[in-house]
């Protein structure tokens, strides 16, 4: 009986990954993980400052200029120094998050896998008691957990800042729209999904090319292309809404405009005529109204989820490819 139990527990022990794989990974890539901690701290610090003292100072300056009253003067189009600092703090955080996929891809391709394949330290790990597949799983999982935790915290804080009460920060943040690339990405899971795709593509590039510098270059190129394609594709990821306004006014849809133009009496969509804005323009050009095809702000979550889904699918494909590649090369099952 006890022999059976001992055998079973030995089998369980046998099938478990060595506990030391995570500490080993943290030790080998310690400087990169410390750098990531620092980067997250800078982002969170900048956003916290912007939400607290930065916002207070910017609002005080705004009020002092009289910009919070109806019909603000021309000075209100220019930012004072406090408003400038507030915007800089937000821009630092969102800029770093925009840059994060590129940094992640460069590190994952260059240092995490490429360099280890190039100088043989990957094989050093594989001839300890760690199989290549477990090594790869840890190489993906540990950075993924750290990246998700950090990016998620930054996203939450930015959302808090973004959606704070209208009477305070709305006008300061009003310089950006919800659908601007950097605002859109940082305000939802898209930033995290981009970063995870970058990690997976970087790891795959490192395994594929087996050299640090080429892997770094290819990974960065792949991620920059992916993010660019997703930015371009974004308006098409969810059905759009159309709005029509009369000839007398101009269309001003509150959201991400995909297409806009003018309507004729027959209902045909034509480009906005050159005389647009002149009083007798509608009669002269036969325009009966204007239309706009756009995404209202209610499309924020569907667009976020679609784009995150695509980025995560790319990440999943890259992960599967990486495991298959490793398995084909080393022939090791687990």
């Amino acid at each position, binding site marked *: 009986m006890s022999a059976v139990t001992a055998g079973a527990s030995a089998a369980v022990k046998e099938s478990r990954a060595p506990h030391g794989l995570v500490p080993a990974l943290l030790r*080998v890539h310690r400087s990169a993980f410390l750098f990531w901690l620092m980067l997250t701290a800078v982002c969170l610090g900048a956003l916290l400052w912007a939400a607290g003292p930065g916002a207070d100072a910017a609002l005080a300056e705004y009020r002092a200029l009289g910009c919070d009253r109806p019909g603000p003067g021309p000075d209100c189009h220019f930012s004072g120094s406090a408003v400038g600092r507030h915007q800089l703090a937000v821009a630092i955080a969102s800029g770093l998050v925009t840059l994060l996929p590129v940094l992640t891809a460069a590190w994952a391709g260059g240092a995490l896998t490429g360099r280890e394949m190039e100088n043989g330290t990957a*094989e050093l790990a*594989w001839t300890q*008691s*760690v*199989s290549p597949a477990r090594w790869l799983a840890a190489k993906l999982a540990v950075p993924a957990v750290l990246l998700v935790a950090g990016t998620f915290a930054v996203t939450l804080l930015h959302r808090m800042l973004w959606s704070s009460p209208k009477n305070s920060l709305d006008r300061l943040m009003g310089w950006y729209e919800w659908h601007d690339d950097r605002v859109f990405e940082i305000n939802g899971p898209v930033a995290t999904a981009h970063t995870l795709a970058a990690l997976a593509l970087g790891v795959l590039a490192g395994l594929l090319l087996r050299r640090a510098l080429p892997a770094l270059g290819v990974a960065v190129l792949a991620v920059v292309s992916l993010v660019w394609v997703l930015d371009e594709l974004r308006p098409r990821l969810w059905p759009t809404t159309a709005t029509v306004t009369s000839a007398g006014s101009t269309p001003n849809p509150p959201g991400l405009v995909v297409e806009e133009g003018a309507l004729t009496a027959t209902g045909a969509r034509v480009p906005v005529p050159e005389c647009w804005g002149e009083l007798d323009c509608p009669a002269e050009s036969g325009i009966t109204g204007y239309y706009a095809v756009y995404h209202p702000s209610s499309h924020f979550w569907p667009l976020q989820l679609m784009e995150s889904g695509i980025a995560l699918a790319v990440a999943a494909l890259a992960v599967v490819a990486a495991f298959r590649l490793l398995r084909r090369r*080393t022939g090791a099952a687990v």
Partner: protein
Amino acid sequence: MTDTAIEAAALGRSFGRRRRQALEGCSFRLPAGRVCALTGPNGAGKSTLLALAAGLLRPTEGSIAVLGRTPAAARERLAYVAQNKPLHPQLTIAGTLRLGRDLNPRRWDARVPERIIAEGDLDPGARIRSLSGGQRTRVALALALGKRPELLLLDEPMADLDPLARHQLMATLMADAADHGTTVVMSSHVVAELEGSCDHLLLLGGGRVRLAGPLDDLLAAHTLVTGRSGDTLEPHTVVESRTTGRQLTALVRPAGPLGEGRRTDRPSLEELVLAHLRSPEAPPLVLDTEQEAAA
């Protein structure tokens, strides 16, 4: 406990799109507890064979079993030191050994590597990147032995060491292997480096096995013959023969008594290996301990 450390059957590995054969049709058996010299000219396939045994490469043909299992299943019980002694340059020696402990939680014995590091007068706090080539070799060997392997695969282990360190480290290695019955496979193209410490030989040439078997049996199977030029060496298998003036020197595998009027010597390991390297056309000879016993 299996009594076979490595068994290869028609093992082959090719690389790249042109399917360049690094190894082909290799069959041999290495009994456990042996210290095997793996030798051959550059590009003979020594490193490929060791990487296959270590489970780092998948065979493209045939099979290889290590300690009675696939190399991947035997991963915990074997250790491998690659030719370029890869280590993480940013870690300290102590950090490198902690890595070994973390990655081999069920087998690690810290005393062995600590002793090897201390014997080399190395500071455990020193970073790997600050070490010389020989010192790195010492750390790599310490890491490999800390795992308490049953099979130790060493690719050109002594190439970076000065003669004194080589002698000392080899002695440590051999004492450790003898104490624990570790099977050691050591590759080198410097035959003199292997003489005296090995009791088994595996000679590769052009990706094929040229000689394999217990060293004593292989040496006993060959005779160095000195005679007059023009002598016939039939029916013996001639590995290599050279004529200098009126004198004939040949390495043969005798098929029977060699006859009168000739001087016969037992070849040294170096003579045996060099003769085979100089004549790639000589037929291979694979001796297996079990075949010997049966015969």
